[in-house]
């Protein structure tokens, strides 16, 4: 049994209560939701918070709300809830692709969307998903709410724009027409962190050309999406040649480091290979939505 250092524990009853507790206990307090990143780190004594503020009673943060122009997801939504949502599957198949390969069912039953994003592990899958879906993060603090783009939200490995006395409360995915998205990950074993993963989201124009595209890579040292690879596709009809060129540029842009999961050349190769795969699948999915829309029209 691995034993954490001593800490105190308190259970928050509302968002306001959680914010007040964060304020009262200061920088040595940490919010715990699913606990699947924080608790192992505490057991290994890599994290030593003095206070754990448990937000699992904040049911008001556990929701999936489809609206006309956006899908709103509460920060306390469990991974398994997201994975089972028909709205999410219909609008953002990339989320289902990613959730299927995030850890294992036991972790997904407890782990939360907000917890994953705030942990900001460089190999975190949802970060890439949010990047390419151009999500917004809603953060609440003593002074009220702020809405951040993912660029603003991410500050680097294990760091976000959420201040010590703030709480991530919601993620919003904008709904766009003729959209398709996909995620693919290479892992050594189910439940392992990504060796490399890639995500892509595309919107086609009515003529079938790429109106907008976002490409992101997980675990290769990148912040945000890969503009140079995206530029290749924008305004042009999707084709195998363009996917190849985008893959090549994504690999060039990547900055992987060697570790037990693989050497640099392999990770760079995966950046290329997986970029091509997710673009192919995202475009195919966008075309399917387009066909459906046309038929309905």
């Amino acid at each position, binding site marked *: 049994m691995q034993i954490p250092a001593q800490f105190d524990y308190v259970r928050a009853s509302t968002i306001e209560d959680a914010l007040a507790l964060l304020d009262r206990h200061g920088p040595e307090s940490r919010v715990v939701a699913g606990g699947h990143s924080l608790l192992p780190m505490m057991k290994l004594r890599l994290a030593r918070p003095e206070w754990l503020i448990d937000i699992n009673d904040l049911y008001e943060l556990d929701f999936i709300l489809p609206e006309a122009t956006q899908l709103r997801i509460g920060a306390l939504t469990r991974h398994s809830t997201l994975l089972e949502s028909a709205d999410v599957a219909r609008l953002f198949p990339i989320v289902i692709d990613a959730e299927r390969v995030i850890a294992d069912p036991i972790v997904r039953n407890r782990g939360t969307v907000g917890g994953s994003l705030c942990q900001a592990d460089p190999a975190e899958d949802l970060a890439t998903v949010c990047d390419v879906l151009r999500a917004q993060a809603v953060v609440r603090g003593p002074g009220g709410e702020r809405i951040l783009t993912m660029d603003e939200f991410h500050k680097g490995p294990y760091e976000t724009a959420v201040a010590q006395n703030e709480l991530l409360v919601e993620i919003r995915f904008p709904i766009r027409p003729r959209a398709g998205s996909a995620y693919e990950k*290479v892992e050594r*074993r189910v*439940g392992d962190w990504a*060796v490399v993963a890639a995500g892509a989201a595309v919107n086609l124009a009515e003529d079938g050309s790429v109106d907008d595209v976002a490409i992101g890579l997980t675990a290769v040292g990148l912040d945000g999406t890969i503009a140079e690879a995206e530029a290749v596709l924008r305004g042009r009809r999707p084709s195998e040649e363009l996917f190849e060129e985008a893959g090549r540029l994504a690999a060039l842009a990547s900055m992987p480091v060697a570790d*037990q999961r*693989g050497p640099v050349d392999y990770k760079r190769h995966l950046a290329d290979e997986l970029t091509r795969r997710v673009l192919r699948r995202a475009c195919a999915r966008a075309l399917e939505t387009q066909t459906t829309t046309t038929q309905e029209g």
Partner: protein
Amino acid sequence: MTITEAHAPNPAAGDADRPIGYGRIQRKEDPRFVRGKGHYVDDIVLPGMLHGAILRSPVAHARLVSIDTTRALAHPGVVAVITGQDLLGLKLAWAPTLSADVQAVLVTDKVRFQGQEVAFVIAEDRYAARDALELIDVDYDVLPPVIDARHALDPGAPVIRDDIEGRTDNHIFDWEAGNAAETDAVFASAEVIVKQEIVYPRSHPAPMETCGAVADFEPIEGALTLYETSQAPHAHRTLFAIVSGIPEHKIRIVSPDIGGGFGNKVGIYPGYILAVVGSIVTGRPVKWVEDRSENLMSTSFARDYIMQGEIAATKDGKILALRTNVLADHGAFNATAQPSKYPAGFFHIFTGSYDLQAAHCKVTGVYTNKAPGGVAYACSFRVTEAVLLVERMVDMLARKLEMDPAELRLKNLIKPEQFPYKNKTGWEYDSGNYERALRLSMEIAGYDDLRREQKEKRARGELMGIGVSFFTETVGAGPRKHMDIVGLGMADGAELRIHPTGKAVVRISVQSQGQGHETTFAQIVAEEIGIPPEDIDVVHGDTDQTPFGLGTYGSRSTPVSGAAVALVARKVREKAKFIAAAMLETRPEDLEWEKGRWFVKGDPSVGKTMAEIAMGAHGTVALPEGIDGNLDAEVTYDPPNLTFPFGAYICVVDVDPGTGHVKVRRFIAVDDCGTRINPMIIEGQVHGGLTDGVGMALMQFIGFDEAGNNLGGSFMDYLIPTSMEVPNWETGFTVTPSPHHPIGAKGVGESATVGSPPAILNAVVDAISPLGVTHMDMPCTPARVWAAMQGRATPPI
């Protein structure tokens, strides 16, 4: 659910619903396990019990300059802190290993691997003990470590074991088997020779339950009760008596339920000794249970063999000879657990299942600055390494000869009429019908169809691989004149007692870690004397309750203890005949046996059941001369030979050409372990071993960086396969009884672990062979497979 219901008919069973004897019955021990009522070492709580925690070295090789325990002792709840200096005073700083070496219990002079035991804190609770570890100030003078075994014998390499008088290098032993000159002669004139370095990387058994102990020393009687995670309680008691000086009759070792062993719980670890010392020093019981990282970093690892293999054959595919030089990394202390005369275990069965003209192996053991161990993880004393070597070499030969690998094996397997077969390194294989097993596995697999499918896929650029392996195991050590562990002959005892009402208790010396002994051994007794298995209690794991014997490892429980149990039951049955004769007022020779009952020849209606005989034995029946008033017996079984289970495995994999990711699509396992006592338990053991094989072949690896940092010290880095990585196992079996075993049974616990890694590896290499790949070493992680596909395969160490 009652216990009786646990034996309800199993619809999947092909056998009788409730066999009184062999057959497919649910495990007697499972009702408590599935309800969370198992009782493990960490469940033991004694009055006044204290908790111990071990401070471990963060570095691999360093002089110990100083230890200051002042701050730790001042920590609330801390009762004592023990260092190596304290143990020197008690003459307990060093303990003998199972391989005639010594191992530091706590460091006194020099740290020799990362994770080595430096100090022991004893506190009122485990939190205080763990907190206090951070308050011990240790000053290390870091030395250059020896990490790569290939450089352990370099001139000028740091000498790790300078504690041993006169030692100037890191050499432990050279050991050889077979005939070098004969083998060289065959190679000199061979038409075809294939050479390959094959590395079996370091892995770890990682049992679900880590190691631990609760020591309770009673000072007035001078008696020690030690609850510990041990696969061999009796051997441990004798060793504790020798090491500690506590008389053996004052020591009781209890191994309660054990959550997996796989050879990880054979040796005596410093933690067990420290718990005992802690209890003696404090006068209170002391519990020590290691955490997962401690288990992975300090307890017995497995494998770490670098093997240079060479195989010789004729052009038309007759295999002639095999030879190998092996570099064996034993870590910082030589602590492998195996029969004393065999420092490389049973590796010399590397001739495998083939009829060879000559064979020779040489194994060199070296020290490195890594955790000690080597014989573990269901290896049957290094048969895993032997089978990987021969099965890779045969596969490579097939490729060189452009022959189908199954065809080449069929051509060279030892034939049924050659048994008992003497191989070229001194083994006598007891029985086998190898061709039948291989043909059955090919039939289940649909081998020819698979090869056709592979051809079509290759034409489309898809990478599908089919891997074959055939293994012969040697298990059930052993004849005691040849095999001992630190001088204790490898025999096992059994005691059987029939209570007056006809219920029974059988006491055995082997210790289950999940193998299902409480069911299997009850079934053996049931088969022999006709009492239902649910009426037979199996007692094990407590030295005060059971006869002496060497314990469970190397798949020896059924071959050795199973034989003891069958023989003790026969002894009771024979005694019952005399009592029945007295009860029936007839002569014993006029009685005939049917399962559960002696009756008068020619008049089956006149007879006595075992229950009636038991009541008679304990009752008032006038007993014949020389028969005492009970129905008990006792035997110790010394096996005349080992048993040689075998099997034919076929694996189908798909490799993603773009990522190198391997998917095991199918796995066909045909096992022959002789007489099958409980087919469901056998299948369960095979399923587990095959899963282990997927782990070894695809992901498990304890690596080190240049400084000697262990890179596999948690389940984040040391990967265990899940249900997602394994296919739906397809098992089959043949039955070739062992001619020398009382019931014809052979061991099976390690067969799948021994046989499956080469099948998977052969399949992966087969899949990527269109890219010109002829060999790669495990683990076949995506990155390593991809590197091999680029022509850049590298050994893992």
